[in-house]
């Protein structure tokens, strides 16, 4: 399988009063055609800003280095016309809060048909109604004339998915699309998303803070901390046999609903830090239960361990392997 999206050495810095501040550090990822890659991390880890870079959307006063290659073409060298075509036809994006990404004064129908204005009016409408039916909204004709405030959050997110696939993209970027939803609604929206992916052979880049949710809907997982990918590999390996202390820490912090109850959670000490707060060593060293002196001074490079790339000096250490095994036992 050839990859649809290749991100190589992406670095994003933002200009502040005191100079350039890193947001994302040397990020490389690839996503196969119709594949699904989960990008997991806590707030401020840089997952959203990295995803926006796929669309060549950079934050204000920032500089972006590295390459984003889509279907063999460098996104950063696309001319204006090609970039517009790429953003509107090749890639689609859905967000955590659909309400802030839809015009409240226009109807659902207006929103849905916006991307297919080149078609005759009647055809546009038919296409939109059938797209709504595909995402589980059977009374599309009525919904087309409604306004966003008349729809619940879950329903509106389905409308977003319908709109996203209508222009026939190959890649869907989903940034915490179910975080604001109730858990039962989340399950349904994720199911709809799965069906849409299958039907349209969409590749998915799925951004979330929820490792278990990402594990359920992706085939590869990348775990980000402080603008850096700490561990990346097949979903089953990363989520069930994690090798990086940060991934292990995330799983140990998470209360179990199924399996054995954890008597007491093992939190990661301290608070999530940002990329610019990292010293010369491993960005996670300050919170890592296994850090040694050289972890604080020497930045680890990603190493291939098993099927995963792991950015840790000490990943093979028996102590760390034991911590990972404990989590597996409990789940």
């Amino acid at each position, binding site marked *: 399988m050839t990859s649809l999206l290749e991100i190589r050495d992406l670095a994003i810095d933002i200009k502040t009063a005191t100079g350039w501040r890193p947001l994302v550090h040397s990020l490389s990822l690839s996503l196969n055609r119709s594949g699904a890659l989960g990008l997991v991390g806590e707030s401020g880890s840089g997952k959203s800003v990295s995803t926006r870079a796929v669309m060549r959307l950079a934050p204000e006063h920032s500089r972006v280095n590295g390459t984003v290659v889509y279907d063999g073409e460098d996104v950063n060298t696309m001319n204006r016309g090609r970039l517009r075509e790429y953003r509107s036809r090749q890639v689609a994006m859905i967000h955590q809060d659909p309400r802030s990404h839809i015009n409240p004064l226009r109807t659902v129908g207006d929103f849905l048909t916006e991307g297919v204005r080149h078609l005759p009016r009647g055809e546009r409408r038919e296409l939109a109604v059938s797209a709504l039916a595909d995402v589980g909204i059977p009374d599309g004709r009525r919904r087309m004339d409604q306004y966003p405030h008349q729809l*619940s959050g*879950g329903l509106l997110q389905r409308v977003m998915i319908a709109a996203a696939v209508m222009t026939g993209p190959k890649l869907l970027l989903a940034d915490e699309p179910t975080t604001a939803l109730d*858990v039962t609604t989340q399950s349904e929206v994720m*199911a709809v998303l799965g069906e849409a992916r299958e039907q349209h052979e969409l590749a998915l880049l799925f951004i979330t803070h929820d490792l*278990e949710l990402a594990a*359920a809907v992706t085939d590869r997982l990348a775990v980000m901390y402080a603008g850096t990918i700490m561990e990346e590999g097949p979903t089953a390996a990363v989520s069930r046999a994690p090798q990086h202390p940060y991934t292990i820490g995330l799983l140990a912090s998470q*209360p179990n*609903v199924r399996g054995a109850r954890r008597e007491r959670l093992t*939190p990661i000490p301290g608070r999530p830090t940002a990329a610019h707060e990292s010293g010369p060593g491993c960005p996670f060293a300050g919170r890592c239960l296994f850090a040694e002196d050289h972890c604080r001074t020497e930045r680890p490079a990603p190493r291939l361990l098993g099927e995963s790339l792991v950015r840790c000096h000490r990943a093979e250490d028996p102590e760390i392997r034991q911590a990972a095994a404990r989590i597996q036992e409990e789940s």
Partner: protein
Amino acid sequence: MTAIIQARKLTKRYESADLLAVDELSFDVHQGECLAVVGESGSGKSTAARMIAGLEAPTSGEVLVEGEARPPVPWPRARRRRLARQIQMVYQDPITSLDPLQTVQDTLGEILAFHDAEADRTARVNELLDRVGLGERYRARRPSDLSGGERQRVAIARALAVNPKILILDEAVSALDVSVQAQVLNLLADLRAELGLTYLFISHDLGVVRQVADRCLVMLGGRAVETADTEDLLSKPEHPYTKRLLEAVPGPGWRPARRQAAVA
């Protein structure tokens, strides 16, 4: 076991919206236990919590705390201090419940002064900060200088300042990153054990609830549909809605399921 909170047929109807938010809800919270109220948005769990605290008057029904009817605010001046000492609340987002201009010292000192003018405030503030794992060096900080987890610790310290018997925690860990959430959950467990507190824990997150709660009450459409010991509820849910909630939680082997066409 004695019931420290008794909710009796609590009902809240919002006439303007023609909404029955809470519908004849009755339950007991025992001395020293943690009862979780679980439900999705709109289930009435926060409205129920606010009625228990006295922040909202029920349309009908009543709340007894330590066997005595708890009046809604505004409280009569003479009883204000005592009522505040019974129950304190911690909310989801401390950035909206802490005054952005006040230092931690001011925030805590203000409440201490209101409740006990004689107290050695500096010593008490230090003691409170210690209790929540922050320490003296946080006294001069303002909410904007604090991380989300630190802010929530300050909110907990503020709730503890009046030595309450009961804490109502309304989605108190929901906005925190998972690594910090675990720290605060451990802190809450320690505080309950050390201070003999009773918790009413409002949450939509079954994993979090399992970690903190002895018993669980599941709400749907303003009613309690199931109440059980937490482990029983999770291992043998009885109500179809409880089953649905549990099935929707991602975990090993889980796949999202589409139940039916969208309705709402």
